[in-house]
């Protein structure tokens, strides 16, 4: 093909948009709802989803995003601008799926209209020449049994168009209905997802045994909410963690894997108090808000006294688990002393000394707990107004004045007069509290999509053409069929009809592909 011909061909395939505004929009709409565009958009959505599964995402873990940025400082700026750390909230990802939705709506509505108009459609008239269709055959009939043929066809749920001695039978109208329901359900799911994202909220909290939580914003450790979320709409409940129990595998195989968690809470809602257990996979629900048990850890109780034997700190401190055996880190900051005091600590529920790595935890349960601490004095840096992590000690303006390890009940007396007592170990549980007003719609959409797909893929549209000619006392029946999809063999329908009329034996299935 010469270059000129090529250009000519392209012109005819995609006409240029008309110059006036209305024409332009009609052209745009046409392009957007064309099948080629729909396919392109489908593949684009798949491609666009990939980077978010490989790069760390802010929505999943801010910490991992931070680590990645530290390791790849050169790329941070571009990646940040492209929204690559929040792919599924980025402008380009949204643009693709919004275009896909527009295309989908543009597809469904006209088809819905056509379907509605043709709801009681009668099959088209039998063509003159039916020999060119699938499975054509001529059969001699003993008597004129045209009426009984029609009866059988009706029994087999064909829609008929009878005109004189010829008829067309058609079946499979539910296919289009199924397809429409399926595509419409996809729209419903997308709307539910978008609506949920605007009104939902989700937060996490850490609650120590013997402590409580009241459902308001100030109490959350971490909180995400949609743009239209209103604090007023949060249900006003309170709960108190009575007890947290956890059970670990003790056998050699998968030793230390968690086997069961139970958080026993006392829940107060609308003036009523009740005791409930929250389990993994078994959230509890309060006015549409759900409380999930998501994790747990240790909170060693520590007391610090000054040289006059006065208590300057006494509390249980939440330690962040670092690995599957719950070796955990925690920090104590005492800003009111001068110089200020900080303690960096590592807690091992089952401590053992590894010749290579030093002290490690070898089991997540409390078999032999030990607390390793370093004591720092100087400037904590907490007064400068920049928020600090409660799990990190800023030691650049501090000096280390001692190192020690303690078992529960033991006390460490430092040279500077302070003493640190490791009193005992308590547990904490972490919860996720979440609310999504639209998830019922998403579920309904998913169920309808499944149902629609069942009919849309499972049912095939097909026709049988039939002609009877009577000469003197002999009748001859001619018939053939047409299937709209390549996978359906209309010959089987013809055979089924003939079997019912006792004019043929059932096909033996062909074992060859």
């Amino acid at each position: 093909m010469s270059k000129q011909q090529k250009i000519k061909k392209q012109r005819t395939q995609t006409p240029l948009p008309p110059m006036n505004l209305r024409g332009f929009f009609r052209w745009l709409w046409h392009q957007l709802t064309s099948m080629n565009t729909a396919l392109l958009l489908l593949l684009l959505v798949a491609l666009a989803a990939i980077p978010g599964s490989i790069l760390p995402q802010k929505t999943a873990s801010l910490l991992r995003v931070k680590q990645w940025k530290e390791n790849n400082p050169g790329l941070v700026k571009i990646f940040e601008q492209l929204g690559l750390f929040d792919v599924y909230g980025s402008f380009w990802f949204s643009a693709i799926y919004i275009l896909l939705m527009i295309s989908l709506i543009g597809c469904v509505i006209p088809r819905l209209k056509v379907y509605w108009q043709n709801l009681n459609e009668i099959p088209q008239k039998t063509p003159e020449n039916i020999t060119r269709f699938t499975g054509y055959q001529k059969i001699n009939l003993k008597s004129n049994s045209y009426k009984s043929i029609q009866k059988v066809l009706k029994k087999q749920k064909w829609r008929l168009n009878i005109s004189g001695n010829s008829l067309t039978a058609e079946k499979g109208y539910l296919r289009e209905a199924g397809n429409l329901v399926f595509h419409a359900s996809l729209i419903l799911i997308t709307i539910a997802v978008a609506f949920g994202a605007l009104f939902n909220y989700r937060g996490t909290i850490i609650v120590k045994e013997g402590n409580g939580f009241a459902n308001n914003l100030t109490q959350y450790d971490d909180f995400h909410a949609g743009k239209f979320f209103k604090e007023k709409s949060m249900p006003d409940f309170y709960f108190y963690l009575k007890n947290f129990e956890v059970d670990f595998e003790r056998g050699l195989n998968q030793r230390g894997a968690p086997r069961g968690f139970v958080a026993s809470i006392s829940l107060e809602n609308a003036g009523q108090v009740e005791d409930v257990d929250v389990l993994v996979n078994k959230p509890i629900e309060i006015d549409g808000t759900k409380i999930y048990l998501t994790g747990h850890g240790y909170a060693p109780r520590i007391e610090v006294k000054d040289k006059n034997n006065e208590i300057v700190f006494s509390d249980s401190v939440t330690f962040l688990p670092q690995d599957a055996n719950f070796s955990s880190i925690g920090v104590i900051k005492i800003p009111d002393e001068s110089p200020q005091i900080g303690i960096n600590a590592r807690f091992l529920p089952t401590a053992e000394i590894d010749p290579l790595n030093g002290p490690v935890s070898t089991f997540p349960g409390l078999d032999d707990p030990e607390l390793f601490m370093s004591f720092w004095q100087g400037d904590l840096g907490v007064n400068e107004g920049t928020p600090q992590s409660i799990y990190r000690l800023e030691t650049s303006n501090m000096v280390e004045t001692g190192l020690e390890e303690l078992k529960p009940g033991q006390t460490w007396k430092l040279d500077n007069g302070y003493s640190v007592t490791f009193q005992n170990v308590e547990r904490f549980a972490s919860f996720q509290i979440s609310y999504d007003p639209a998830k019922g719609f998403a579920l309904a959409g998913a169920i309808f999509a499944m149902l629609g797909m069942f009919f849309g893929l499972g049912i095939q549209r097909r026709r049988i053409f039939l002609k009877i000619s009577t000469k003197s006392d002999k009748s001859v029946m001619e018939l053939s069929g047409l299937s709209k999809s390549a996978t359906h063999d209309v010959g089987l329908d013809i055979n089924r009809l003939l079997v019912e009329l006792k004019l043929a034996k059932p096909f033996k299935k062909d074992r060859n592909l």
Partner: protein
Amino acid sequence: MNSNSLSNLLVYFSILLSAINLVLFSVALSQNSKTSKTSRIAMNLTWLTGIFLGLALVLRGVAAQRAPWGNMYEFALASCFAIILSFLVISIRKDINWLGIFVIAPVLILLGLSVVVLYTESGPLVPALKSSWLLIHVTAAIISYGAFSINFGLSIIYLFKVKNKFKKLPSANRIDEFSYKVVLFAFPIWTFAVISGAIWAESAWGRYWGWDPKETWAFITWIIYAAYLHSRVTIGWKGKKSAWVGIIGYVAIIFNFFVINIWVTGLHSYAGV
């Protein structure tokens, strides 16, 4: 001998049988008659492999007292079983002995990887996996993986066939239509697997969809096969183009299973790999 080691033994036997079968199916493919004695023996051995793998799974389940798909090793075993089962079920109605080599070869590779790389002793489930939705979700995923694997095999065969290799296979058109039918079967089951996964995620983590890497790739897989069906029905793609879309879909499945499970951290990490 406890049920765990009996299960391992059966897996080793399955590997042995599959290796023999690989040879038999290749010999059969090079012979002239369509259903040679060699290919009949190979089919019988495939039935035996299927039974062994099924038993191996049941015994794993007995050892752990739960459904035998709680870690990657078991999931891989179950997928091999599903691939062989899909092949055998189809073979009852259609003569597809010629497909054998393309079914056994990936199964052999996957079984080998399971034993060498993925193996874990059987054990109870971590709490997040204790749910009846897990049973439903994973069962659906395994069945559709089995069927998509058959589609993958057929796509490869199609591409060879149109290059005029393997003259004795069914016509390219027939292979193409058949591979489309397999996707028609697998796609709704995969859709159901994704939906039941979302329901499970809602009850375990408090959100039904969170773009976790595993979820993302399930979505990508779904979109690719939706595009496969779409392109056939609406713009009439078939043959080579469809075969390539099928292959791309399967690449997404493999990527999800190996790369995401092993190298990318998400919520879906299994106990002991």
